[in-house]
């Protein structure tokens, strides 16, 4: 029990240490860390509207984070969140363009499904490449991010551009305003809180159930624990590696559809970079997943925390003129600190439990030290 408490305390302390570094950064930039914290808290939780904005910001992080958790359990690293979000958003957009007149009850599930399918395709590609051609999935998912950004830019500047933009000659790279029938309904009047938040939370819960309560999840975890043992037990390792990345991508694609149909503009727009559309959720989802201990359920509160940081950072910019990019830098530090504390954590736990560290049985619960390429 004590070991478990300490186990969850270490990543929290590591993240706190990262935030302390953030406080020092604020000091160096000439702002009081206390004022900074106040601005972030006020910006993230200060009113119902801001609370809703935080939840909306957290939505793609929940989905991407849950997807990354699933992939990690099967010992594959999915850095392709950005590309998968874009793929999902594009396919969902095409669905809404093709069938604009369907009633909401039909169209909303359809566009969400479109998003999920788009993400699944983009996740399955590195999955197949890893399973059947031993291509390092870290590299292939990153490369697919780069491919999808350009593909999005191409589509939004060319085939999918808003006809009004051509008529007006402004040529802003965006699609037309998509069917209102596809818009995710608002949950609380006067805020941006929309159905997508619920979809994300439900999806994360389902991810948890699949991972721990279903045969598929058992196979994925078995493959992650020991591919050789899994194979000996009759599990098709290649197929399950592909599933892991495809499911991970599916959740990212769903996030993409939600980004489009939960946005005020109700359309896709690009500034030429991936983050311009995704808000870097593909990377921030990694942060949320790591902080959530690579557990789909814990990823939910974790995503809200980092959603709050991102929303609060805009207030930081407004009140203290500290660029919101501080939140991005902080996220990077959180990743570094949390992942660096992983070995420290199993070391402390081994002392508490008075047993030698790095014992095989602990690894199933502690995926940090059991991911691709790490010593076995």
């Amino acid at each position, binding site marked *: 029990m004590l070991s478990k408490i300490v186990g969850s305390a270490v990543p929290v302390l590591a993240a706190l240490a990262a935030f302390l570094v953030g406080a020092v*950064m604020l000091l160096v*930039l000439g702002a009081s860390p206390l004022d900074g914290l106040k601005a972030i808290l006020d910006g993230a939780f200060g009113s119902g509207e801001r609370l809703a904005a935080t939840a909306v910001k957290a939505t793609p992080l929940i989905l991407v984070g849950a997807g990354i958790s699933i992939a990690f359990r099967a010992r594959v*690293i999915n*850095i392709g969140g950005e590309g998968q979000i874009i793929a999902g958003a594009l396919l969902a957009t095409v669905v809404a363009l093709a069938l604009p007149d369907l009633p909401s009850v039909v169209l909303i599930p359809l566009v969400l499904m479109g998003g999920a399918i788009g993400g699944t395709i983009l996740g399955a590609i590195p999955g197949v*490449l890893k399973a059947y*051609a*031993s*291509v*390092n999935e*870290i*590299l*292939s998912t*990153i*490369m*697919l*991010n*780069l*491919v999808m950004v*350009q*593909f999005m*830019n*191409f589509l939004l*500047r*060319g085939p999918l551009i808003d006809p009004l933009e051509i008529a007006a000659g402004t040529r802003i790279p965006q699609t037309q305003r998509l069917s209102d029938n596809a818009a995710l309904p608002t949950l609380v009047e006067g805020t941006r809180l929309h159905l997508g938040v619920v979809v994300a939370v439900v999806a994360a819960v389902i991810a948890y159930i699949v991972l721990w309560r279903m045969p598929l999840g058992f196979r994925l975890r078995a493959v992650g624990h020991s591919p050789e043992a899994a194979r000996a037990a009759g599990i098709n390792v290649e197929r399950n590696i592909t599933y892991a990345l495809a499911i991970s991508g599916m959740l990212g694609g769903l996030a993409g559809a939600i980004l489009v149909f939960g946005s005020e503009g109700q359309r896709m727009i690009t500034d030429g*970079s991936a*983050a311009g559309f995704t808000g*870097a959720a593909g*990377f921030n989802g*990694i*942060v949320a997943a*790591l902080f959530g201990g690579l557990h789909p359920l814990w990823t939910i509160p974790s995503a809200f925390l980092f959603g709050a940081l991102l929303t609060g950072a805009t207030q930081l910019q407004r009140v203290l003129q*500290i*660029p919101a*990019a*501080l*939140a*991005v*830098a*902080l*996220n*990077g*530090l*959180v*990743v*570094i600190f949390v*992942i*660096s*504390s*992983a*070995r*420290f954590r199993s070391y402390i736990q081994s002392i508490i439990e008075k047993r030698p560290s*790095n014992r095989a049985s602990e690894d199933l619960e502690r995926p*940090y*030290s059991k*991911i*691709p*390429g*790490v*010593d076995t």
Partner: protein
Amino acid sequence: MSDFFTLTVLVAVVGSGVRLATPYLLAGLGETVGQKSGVLNLGIDGVMQLSAFSAYFVVLKTDNLMLGVLAGLAVGAVMGVFYGVITIVFKATQGISGIGIFIFGLGFSDLLFQRLVGTPKPIRQLPTIEIPFLSELPVVGEALFQHNPLTYVAFILVPVTILFLGKTTFGLNIRAVGENPHAADSLGVSVERTRYVAILIGNTMAGLAGVALVLELGIFQPNLTQGLGFIAVALVYFGSWRPSHVMAGALLYGLVNATVLQLKARNIIPLSFSELAAMAPAVLTIVALVILAQRVKGPAALTKPFIRH
């Protein structure tokens, strides 16, 4: 299409291809040294952005290119120390800690840029140095011997890296540590120290790559690299961990980019298709990874932290 295949255009394409290959080559060579020691550094894209910003900022304030280069190198080295502590002291999972470095570099360089500069102002670019005699040669002179100093440095570093890894004691130690750290350790080679130095070299060269990029462009903007550093990591796999092959890969990327730019500039491909063409480097990388993945094996201890039994 016909006016693309004229000598002047081809010379221009090769010339700018060599120029555009420079940051890929510098970052790729550094990453090769690091990976040879068994350490994957996925964060070099972030390091490049930090170094690029510091070089940009120093040149903006002092108008001194040399100081700018030094600032970029220093930032790269500092990030090397940082990454060394992460991977060697804390033994963190390299695939993920590198992504952390990338996100940090992306955010922090953006933060500093917005806070200290705000609106992008152009700075002095690196001068072109024409190599005496060689630059006057027909065709090759213009394509190969009229470049900025960092391009020459990058290509000179190819044989230097080959000799360093193949002929010097320290280079051989790096390879031993990357192949079989326990054997190296039992022979008295310090795995930790060797990897530290390899990481330091790798990050400093990534820093130089960022400097080369920003001083070539003469301007900084957030996310300046647009994934160039990640492609440089892939280039090491692509080049099967051999500096000469990494150079070939870097040249290929440079030429692909230069060709796309020329086709665009000459309106041979419509502007909206230039994004499709811009997908080429990443698609090329995936194809190369598929072809090479099962044929070449990297350093045996790559991404494995060293723990003495």
